[in-house]
C-alpha cells in the first residue's frame, strides 16, 4: 500500500505537472526549431509571438464571456483558438513581409536575422502591452477538475490523492493531437517532404523546383498554429502575463537545442526532457521516502536537490551540459 501511495504521490506532484509543462514547452520548441531549420535563424521573438497569439485568444474569450457564449464544461478559450491562430499567422506574415524577407532575399548571415528578431521582439512586446497591458489575466472557465483528490481517495482508499486538472488533460490531449497531425504532414505529404528537403539542402531543393515562397508561407502557418496553441494552453494552465511569456522563451530554446535544433521530433522530446528535469530536480522527496523507507530511516530534511527558485537554472544547466558533450543535441540536429 505504501508503495502505491508513493507512486501516486510522484504522479500527482511530478509526472502529471511535468507532462503538462513539457507539452507546452514542446509546442514552443517545435516552433523554434522549424523557424531555425527552414528560415535559418534563432528567433528571439518566439516568446512574444506566442504571447501575441494568446493575447488575441484572451481578448476574444473576454468578448465571448460578455456575450454569454460558453463551451459547456470546457474552457471558452478553446473556441477562440482558431480565430487567434488566424490573427497570429496574419501578424507573422506581416512581419515576415516587411522585416524578415528583406534579409532572406539578401541571404544575410543568420546572426543578422537573429538581431532583427530582437527588434521584432521589442515591437511585439510594445504592441501587446499597449493593447492588453502588462497585468496578470486569468481567462480559464468551465469545469476545473477532472479528478479531485478526495474523490480519488474515496475511490481507491489510498492516503494520497490524485488530482487531474482539466487544463492538464486538455494540454496533453491537444498537444498529442496537434503534434501528430504536424508530423503526419511533415513526413507523409508532398508539401511536408518538400519542407524537410528545403531545410536539409536549400540549393538542391530550389533545383528540384520547390518554390521557396510557398515553403516560407507554410512554415509561418505551422509556426502560427504551434505558437498560438502552445501559448493558450500555457495561459489556461497558469495565467496569461506578457512578461512570463517572454521568460518562457528561455526554457523553450533550451528544449529546442537539447533536442537537436532543426529536428522537430527532437524538439518535441526536448520539451519533456527540460520539464521533467526542472520538476524532478526541484521536487522535495521527503514524503516519498517516508512511504518507502522503514520509520527509523525516515529523512528529516526535505530531500530536495535544489530549491524551486532554481527551476530555470536547472534547464539552462542541462543545456550547457548538452552543448559541452553533444553539441548537436541529444537527438541529433544540424551540426553546429
Amino acid at each position, binding site marked *: 500500500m505504501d508503495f502505491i501511495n508513493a507512486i501516486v504521490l510522484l504522479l500527482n506532484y511530478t509526472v502529471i505537472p511535468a507532462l503538462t509543462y513539457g507539452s507546452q514547452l514542446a509546442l514552443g520548441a517545435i516552433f523554434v526549431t522549424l523557424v531555425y531549420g527552414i528560415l535559418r*535563424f*534563432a528567433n*528571439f521573438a518566439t516568446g512574444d509571438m506566442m504571447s501575441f497569439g494568446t493575447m488575441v485568444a484572451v481578448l476574444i474569450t473576454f468578448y465571448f464571456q460578455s456575450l454569454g457564449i460558453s463551451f459547456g464544461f470546457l474552457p471558452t478559450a478553446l473556441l477562440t483558438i482558431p480565430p487567434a491562430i488566424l490573427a497570429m499567422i496574419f501578424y507573422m506574415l506581416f512581419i515576415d513581409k516587411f*522585416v524578415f524577407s*528583406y534579409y532572406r532575399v539578401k541571404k544575410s*548571415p*543568420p*546572426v*543578422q536575422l*537573429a*538581431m*532583427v528578431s*530582437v*527588434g*521584432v*521582439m*521589442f*515591437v*511585439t*512586446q*510594445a*504592441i501587446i*502591452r*499597449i493593447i492588453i*497591458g*502588462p497585468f496578470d489575466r486569468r481567462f480559464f472557465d468551465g469545469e476545473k477538475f477532472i479528478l479531485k483528490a478526495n474523490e480519488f481517495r474515496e475511490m481507491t482508499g489510498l492516503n494520497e490523492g490524485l488530482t487531474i486538472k482539466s487544463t492538464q488533460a486538455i494540454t496533453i490531449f491537444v498537444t498529442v493531437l496537434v503534434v501528430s497531425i504536424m508530423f503526419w504532414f511533415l513526413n507523409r505529404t508532398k508539401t511536408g517532404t518538400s519542407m524537410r528537403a528545403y531545410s536539409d539542402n536549400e540549393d538542391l531543393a530550389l533545383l528540384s523546383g520547390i518554390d521557396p515562397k510557398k515553403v516560407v508561407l507554410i512554415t509561418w502557418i505551422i509556426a502560427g498554429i504551434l505558437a498560438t496553441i502552445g501559448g493558450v494552453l500555457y495561459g489556461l494552465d497558469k495565467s496569461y502575463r506578457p512578461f512570463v511569456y*517572454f521568460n518562457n522563451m*528561455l526554457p523553450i*530554446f*533550451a528544449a529546442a*537545442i537539447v533536442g537537436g*535544433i532543426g529536428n522537430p521530433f527532437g524538439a518535441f522530446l526536448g520539451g519533456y526532457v527540460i520539464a521533467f528535469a526542472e520538476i524532478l530536480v526541484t521536487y522535495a522527496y521527503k514524503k516519498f521516502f517516508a512511504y518507502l523507507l522503514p520509520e527509523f530511516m525516515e529523512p528529516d*530534511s526535505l530531500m530536495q536537490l535544489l*530549491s524551486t*527558485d*532554481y527551476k*530555470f*537554472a536547472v534547464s*539552462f*544547466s542541462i*543545456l*550547457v551540459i548538452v*552543448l*559541452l558533450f553533444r*553539441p548537436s543535441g541529444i537527438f541529433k540536429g544540424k551540426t*553546429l
Partner: protein
Amino acid sequence: MMQHKNIIAAYSIMILLIIAVGVLQSWTIALTILNYCLISAVMTIGANIQWGYAGLINFGIMGYTALGGLAAVLVNVPPVKEAWKAGGSGMVVSLILIISGVYIIRTVLRKFENSKKRNYIVAAIIIIGFVTIRYISGPAIENIEAVDPAKTGFLGGLGLPIIFSWIVGGLFAAGIAFIVGKIALGLRADYLAIATLLIAEIIVSIIKHEDWLARGVKNVIGLKRPVPYEVDLQGSTWFIDLVEKFHSKKLDLITSLSERQDVLNQLVIDASSVYVKLCLAGLFLTVVIILLILTQKALYSPWGRKMRAIRDNEVAANAMGKNVVKEHLLIFILGSAIVGIAGAMMVTNDGLFTPGSYRPMRYTFVIWVMVIVGGTGNNFGAILGGFVVWFLWVEAAPIALFFINFFTAHLDETNAVKQHLIQSAAYFRFLLVGIGLLIIMRYRPKGLIPEKINIK
C-alpha cells in the same frame, strides 16, 4: 575628415538634447539621464569590443552587470560579524570544498584521459561533493539568514569605499567570463547568443536566491557613495555661499528677507542634488574617457588588427597561425570585465542593489540595440548609441504622451481609447526602440557612426 565632422555633430546634438531636458524638464532629470548615458556607454564599449572587434555575440550582458553590482555590495557593506560567527566557517569550508572539488575533477580528467571510467568518477565526485556541500552549507546558510533578517541576514562585505568595487566588479565578471568562455566560445554565433543569455539567467538567479550572499530579492540599500550627500551639502556653509554667489543676481531682486531665505533654501536643495549628480558624472566621465583611450589604442595596435583579421576571416587567420580560440577567450573576458565595471558603477549611482531588477530586456537587449544603433566596431559609435538609445528609452514616455494628446485632441477626456493610450504611454519605449533598431538595421546596417574602412 567627413567622419570627424559627423562624430562632432552627432555628439553636439546629443548634448543639446540633454541640455534641452534640463531647461524644459529639470536639471536633476537631465543629469540623471546623463549619468545613465555614461554608464550605458561603458556597457556598450564592453559589448562593442566583443561584437565589433571579434564578432562574438554576448547576450549575457545582464549577468555581468549583476556581477558588478554584487561586487559593489561585497566591497562596500561592512562585514556582519554576527553572521560570520553564525555560519561563516561553514561557508568557508564549503568554498574550500568547491575549489578542491574542481581541482580533483581536473586531475581526474587529465589522468584518466582514455578511460571509460572517467565519466563515472567525475559524476561520483560531483554527486558526493554536492551532497557534502549541501550538508555543511545548509545549516550555515540557515544560521546566517536568521541573523536580523529585516536588516542583514547575510555575510556583508569588506566595508571598503565603493569605488574599489569598480575594479572588483570587473574582476568578478572577468572570472566568470573565463569559465563561460571556456564552455561556450566554440559554438556557432547564434548558439553562443542563446547559451550566454541562459548562463546570465543562471548567474542572476543565484544572486537572487542565495540570500546569505547579498540578501537576494530583499535588496541591499544604503550603499555609501563616493561623493558627498545632499543633506551634508545643505548643511555646509561653503556650499550655501556658493549657491548664493551663483544666484546673486536673482536673489538681489528679492527685497523681503524671509522670502529671500526661502528662495535660497529651495535653491540650495535643488543645487545639492545637481551637485551630487555632477560629481558622479565627473567620475563616470573619467571612466568612459579612460576606457575610450585604451580601447582606441587597442583598436589601432597590431593586436587590434589581428582581431579584425580574425573577425573578418576566421579560417584564414587560423591558417596563418593565429590562435583564434585564445584570442576570442581573451576578448570575451575583456569585454565582460568592462560590463562588470559598468554594473558596479550603476549600483554606485543608485546606492542600492536590487537583484530582482536584472531582466534581460533592460540589461541585455537594450544594450545590444545601443551597440547596433551606434555603430559596430567603432567606439565613438558605440558610446553615441548608448547615449541616443538611453535618451529615447527614458524620454519615450513623455514624447509618446505628447503625440497621444496631439492626435486625440479632438476626443473627449472620457474617451476609452484615449484613456487607454495615455495609460499605456510607458510602453511606447519598447515600440520606439524596436522600430529604431529595425530601421537602422535595414537602412544603415553599419550604425550611425560606422567603422572606418581604411585604418592606417
